[in-house]
């Protein structure tokens, strides 16, 4: 009990960050499930959403800026897929991954160019930036809202995948790309939807994350991006509940490590966890094992 009391701020922060990671991780896990591609640019999309908010909120009121940020992020995600991944549909997997790294390099450098490499102050979003008192420790409203919002969004997504036609198509494509194509599923539409959903969630995650961290830099997306990917692998790539659970576990653990004063290993921990899971159970917590056909 004493442990929890002492570490409550860290645990709360962990749950909050975990929720934000979860929203990014879903984008990774869905894309990987369908294209077998680590979308290295996803973290940078998340960063781009942060900058859009910075620039849009400077001129527009928040109630217009926020929806606009989400819409623009979705469009950007959609365009990335169309321009950088679609032409390589038949290319070896390594080429697509290199293309993803190229896109990431492009977005980061463009952000650097636009901002001259300076960190930008993230706008304060009223209500969710306010302080709140939870069981005797002070935190912001966003910390409390994040996990709730994450769970609502995930529930909606799971329902979408389970009960709608496009959801069914997504499941089919992730199970067998070629056969579902033969069954008349329009692969490109399904893939576009996947990127749209992933980008939408990344935009929401970005709003929450940067409200917490207050500044955006051109490289702000790469670490959360990689961590969210680790979360997706940890939960079993392709599995949405797995990614969410993995994200919460990583968020909480890394904040506890911070609390213990091991700040240097704060980022390294996530990767240590990744390597352990890859070696012990490569299919992750909820993933399925696949065998190659000879």
């Amino acid at each position, binding site marked *: 009990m004493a442990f929890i009391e002492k570490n409550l701020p860290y645990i709360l922060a962990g749950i909050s960050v975990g929720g934000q990671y979860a929203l990014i991780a879903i984008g990774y896990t869905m894309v990987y499930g369908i294209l077998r591609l*680590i979308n290295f640019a996803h973290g940078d999309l998340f960063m781009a959403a942060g900058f859009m908010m910075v620039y849009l909120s400077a001129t527009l009121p928040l109630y217009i800026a926020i929806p606009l940020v989400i819409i623009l992020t979705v469009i950007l995600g959609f365009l990335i897929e169309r321009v*950088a991944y679609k*032409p390589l549909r038949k290319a070896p997997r390594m080429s697509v991954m290199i293309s993803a790294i190229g896109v990431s390099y*492009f977005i980061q450098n463009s952000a650097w160019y636009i901002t001259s490499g300076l960190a930008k102050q993230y706008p304060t979003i009223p209500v969710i930036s306010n302080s709140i008192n939870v069981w005797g420790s002070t935190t912001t409203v966003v910390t409390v809202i994040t996990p709730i919002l994450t769970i609502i969004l995930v529930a909606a997504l799971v329902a979408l995948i389970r009960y709608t036609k496009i959801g069914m198509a997504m499941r089919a494509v992730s199970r067998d790309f070629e056969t579902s194509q033969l069954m008349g599923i329009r692969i490109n539409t399904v893939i576009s939807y996947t990127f749209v959903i992933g980008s939408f969630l990344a935009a929401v995650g970005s709003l929450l994350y940067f409200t917490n961290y207050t500044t955006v830099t051109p490289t702000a997306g790469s670490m959360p991006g990689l961590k969210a990917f680790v979360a997706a692998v940890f939960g079993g790539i392709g599995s949405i509940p797995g990614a969410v659970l993995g994200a919460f576990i990583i968020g909480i653990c890394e904040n506890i490590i911070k609390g213990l004063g091991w700040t240097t290993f704060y980022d390294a921990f*996530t*990767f*240590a966890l990744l390597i352990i899971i890859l070696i012990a159970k490569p299919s992750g917590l909820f993933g399925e094992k696949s065998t190659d056909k000879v």
Partner: protein
Amino acid sequence: MEHLNNKQKILITAALIIGLFILLLVLEQFLPSSSMLFVVLKKGAIYALVVVSMNLLNGFTGLFSLGQAGFMLIGAYTYAIFTIPVEARPMVYQYFNGGIVKFTLPVIPAIILAGIVTAIFAYLIGLPVLRLKSDYLAIATLGFAEIIRAFFQWDKLGPITNGSNLLKLYPVFHSVIFPFTVAGICIAIIVLLINSSYGRAFKAIRDDEIAAEAMGINLAHHKQISFTISSFFAGIGGALLAMFQTTVQASAFRATMTYEILLIVVIGGIGSVTGSCLASFLFIACSEWWLRFLDNTTYIGSFKVPLLATGFRKVFFAVVIMIIVLFYNRGIMGTNEFSLDALIEFFRKRFSKRRKEDSAT
């Protein structure tokens, strides 16, 4: 047409190399040492080594590894730690009572040690991760690189690594001959390896793992060899980079560095050593010299050239790289090598064509 025989080839190659070195010596005599050309040549040679070592892994063995920056870091640190002069140590390790390493190695042994230490790390990392397939391997090696970076910045290791502070005051090179010689020897060894029976086995693994295994090639063993050797040379590349930069700090060896190296591999052609070398010099020349103007706000008369501002060079680069990845995914050289035969063939064709035209007129 008759091909050159082996002896002639070796002679011509040797003559070309000697010619190159004489040219470099002459340039050093006549150009000011601050010339951009030398910066490009030095850094280009170092990058060529690192890029070729990554190509050995990604292009020739088909192992998609993203750990290069981490391995360079180990090499750079090993070199710096063991060559800082004893009398300079109290100043460098000012927060750690002069560190615990109380001796200094000469430059060449230290460079070799840098390679060996990196290779040992790589061997140990390879044991678990090389069992992973393509993209999982990529992300795991990327993860290890991050862990290495954190590890070297760790306070508790401060007496050895100086924590997150700079390492400096170790011996560096001034002449462009030094990096050219070291990188040249290393690349030559890699080329010999690629053309040996082991190189064939690596390429077989790249083409088809299952068939390679059915031909009696032990996958784990060969991947381990490729990974360790590649890292050995990445470590040496790291040591050279440390010498070039004159200071080393772990925080510089980020994933972005690996991405950049990977993109140079792609530009040169995955599976081409000469392509990698060519692309390295080209990339460094563009980024350090030729395209610098893109970063400067420029006025022609009173007209402000649009877009030009800090960072535009990198955006331009990124666009070029995306174009190469999407439309010319074979890079400059594809999997071909630049060879004397091909060159002679090329000129002979040109020449004979012209002669035909001449006789026609």
